[in-house]
């Protein structure tokens, strides 16, 4: 059994980013380059629908060798992979999101690995405990049955991490054209900090189930 051979700590191998192929006069962004995106609309387990797309933008520029390749503010879309409102028996709301792409000039940078799956707080254990206690007080069973967990809510402005899904190269002309088209202060800003300025856990709120 694999378990018998297991070392003392959990180990999970993380894939390493392959180096991007570089054309003659262009700068390449390798696959799996970390990016930080901002959600531009309110999302929630009760508010959102499975399959719907939502707007995102690049929160920090993508930099290669100290140079901005894709400026902050590049617009794109994410997808609601799964949304389910909180339910009876204490089940919390569920929200599974994916970042799909940001558009940069005439090119589309595909994204993946969005770190923003949000569960509303589950109250299943409380409802089950109430169910057991209903042996003494039968009325509790009905309360437990209709007890709802909390909805999950991702407010507009939430910042989350994702990665580029494939190698993509930009010519120096394309980089210059995109930079000229997006003269926002953020576009010229610093690269994304190593740690999120506001942890996702603090950004995402819990809403009582209705």
């Amino acid at each position, binding site marked *: 059994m*694999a378990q018998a*051979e*297991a070392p003392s700590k959990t180990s999970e191998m993380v*894939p390493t980013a392959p180096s991007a192929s570089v054309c003659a006069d262009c700068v390449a962004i390798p696959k799996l380059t970390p990016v930080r995106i901002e959600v531009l609309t309110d999302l929630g387990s009760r508010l959102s629908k499975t399959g719907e797309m939502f707007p995102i933008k690049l929160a920090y520029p993508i930099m290669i060798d100290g140079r901005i390749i894709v400026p902050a503010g590049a617009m794109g879309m994410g997808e609601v992979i799964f949304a389910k409102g909180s339910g009876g028996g204490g089940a919390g709301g569920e929200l599974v999101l994916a970042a799909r792409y940001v558009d940069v000039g005439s090119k589309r940078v595909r994204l993946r690995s969005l770190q923003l799956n949000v569960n509303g707080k589950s109250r*299943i254990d409380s409802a089950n405990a109430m169910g057991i206690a209903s042996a003494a007080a039968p009325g509790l069973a009905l309360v437990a049955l209709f007890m709802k967990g909390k909805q999950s809510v991702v407010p507009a402005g939430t910042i989350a991490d994702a990665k580029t899904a494939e190698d993509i190269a930009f010519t120096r002309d394309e980089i210059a054209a995109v930079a000229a088209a997006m003269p926002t202060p953020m576009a010229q800003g610093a690269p994304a900090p190593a740690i999120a300025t506001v942890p996702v856990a603090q950004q995402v709120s819990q809403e009582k189930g209705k």
Partner: protein
Amino acid sequence: MTSRIVTLTALALAMLATPAVAKDKDKAKAEAVPTESIVIPTPPSGKGQILFFRPGGTGFAVGCSVNENGQKISSLGAGRYFIMVATPGRHEYTVKSEAKDTLALNVEDGETQYASCKIKMGIMVGRPDIRPSTRDDFLKTKKLKMVDADDMGPGEGALRPDQLAAAVPAPQAK
């Protein structure tokens, strides 16, 4: 009258099933290992994987079989886990007993995701609730045992114990 007959039948069936289920629960508990010692292999090239787990607790007699496209992938008893290898993209999984519950996840190439099943209160019997989870939640579940090979279904993807052993590199000799 009809509802009383249904209730009594359900109770009788539950009583019949309980010794076998309790035995399986005891076995799982005895053979469970600390989750922090469970080695999760890298997904095969071009694939992602989902680790399904079910913490112990109430509702151990209720099944939580995980299905995809109507085919059973694996049973998931209390205190058990299994790893499902899948192609990147959207996958929809269902668990079913008195009621059906669904979860969709976006499998990513080279990554491991987590999903958990809990049994919540139902009218006649408990209802399975499958939801996205995290590595931290997996580690918070103190001990788990892998699902036995004969409890895995015909649906492809669930790593059998021998496949898991082959996928995990042997520890290096000192």
